[in-house]
């Protein structure tokens, strides 16, 4: 920005500029502070009578002033220390408190996973459900030579007959009054029936 005219700077020094003119000169002065200062000093009309007033005046009881300031400063420091002492330092548990929530969530997730793992093992290990020998036999066997044992489970009931005479293969027939998909199957000996008319 160009240096303003001398008359403009004089007006500025005398505080007679306003609005855009003032803003313009101030912008120039901000960019060129040393030049502005030098010109302003050259052009200003100082009030030299004020130089009779002393620049420095030692206050009454200066050492006492210093002592009072020191006392106030020390009490400021003491207040700061007391504040630190009164404010309890956080304990280790409170410092680690932020860990509680994620730890709890992790524990819950672990329990859930373990629970599902156990449930699956129970399911895979059986299909074979636990066999229990039932005390209540459903089969009547007249021959004393044949013993019956019955095993019940969720998926099937198994009846074991001990002491039967062996059955020849030719005599065996897989017969069922129902479709093969049905759960009921039985084996019977073939017999020839003769009908007389």
């Amino acid at each position, binding site marked *: 920005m160009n240096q303003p005219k001398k008359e403009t700077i004089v007006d*500025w020094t005398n505080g007679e500029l306003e609005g855009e003119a003032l803003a313009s000169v101030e912008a120039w002065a901000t960019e060129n502070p040393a030049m502005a200062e030098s010109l302003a000093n050259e052009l200003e009309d100082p009030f030299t009578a*004020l130089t009779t007033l002393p620049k420095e005046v030692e206050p009454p009881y200066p050492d006492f*002033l210093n002592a009072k300031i020191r006392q106030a400063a020390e009490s400021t420091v003491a207040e700061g220390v007391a504040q630190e002492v009164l404010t309890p330092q956080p304990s280790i548990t409170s410092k680690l408190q932020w860990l509680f929530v994620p730890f709890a969530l992790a524990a819950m997730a672990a329990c859930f996973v373990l629970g599902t793992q156990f449930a699956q093992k129970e399911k895979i290990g059986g299909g074979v459900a636990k066999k229990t020998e039932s005390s209540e036999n459903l089969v009547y066997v007249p021959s004393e030579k044949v013993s019956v044992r019955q095993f019940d489970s969720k998926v099937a009931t198994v009846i074991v007959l001990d002491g039967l005479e062996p059955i020849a293969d030719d005599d065996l027939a897989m017969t069922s009054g129902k479709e093969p998909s049905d759960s009921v199957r039985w084996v019977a000996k073939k017999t020839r029936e003769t009908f007389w008319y």
Partner: protein
Amino acid sequence: MNIFRHFPSNFLRGPVGATGSGGEMSGGRSQDTDRILVEQAQKGDYSAFDKLVTEHRGKVYAMIVNMVKNDADAWDLTQDSFIKAWKALPKFENRSKFSTWLFRISHNVVYDWARKKKIQSEGELDDNLFSAADIDPNAKTVPSQPSSPDREMEKAELRVEIEMALAKLSEKHREVILLREVQGMDYKEISEIIGASVGTVMSRLFNARKKLQTLLSR
């Protein structure tokens, strides 16, 4: 006659009355010293801050007493200024002059005090808070050099007249003219202290000078 006034009561400041000479160092060296002392004080060394107080209390007190025209209030406000400076010292960045920053604090202290006084006073609407009647003609000052009694009396009378005229200015005008004509600060420093632009500083200076000339020419 007190011959002891010629001996330094404070080795930093030199003999009593030796304002602008003797114990006062050149501007650049004083600034460097201030910077070093501020750094030490910021690290917790109170003796360094004590040296800063001793170095600057004269200027701060002179400025404040010319503003408030009361020795007791000026003493309290000087103490308050330094206490605030100690508390705010950790925030001082030590890039600008310590004296400018200190004057800024004392400016705020004086204005806060004046505001409270205005609130407490009854029915006082005039901005010229400080009346000429508050000036003590026997106010203690430190003459530069002993001179003849007649000359001393003339100077004392002129000083009283000037102080009475200053008291009739508004606070804003009085402050800028004291900072410029008495403390010898440049426009940029004054603008930092009062929190206004350089243009505002010049405007107030011009008006203050004009009004003073009018008052003193009566």
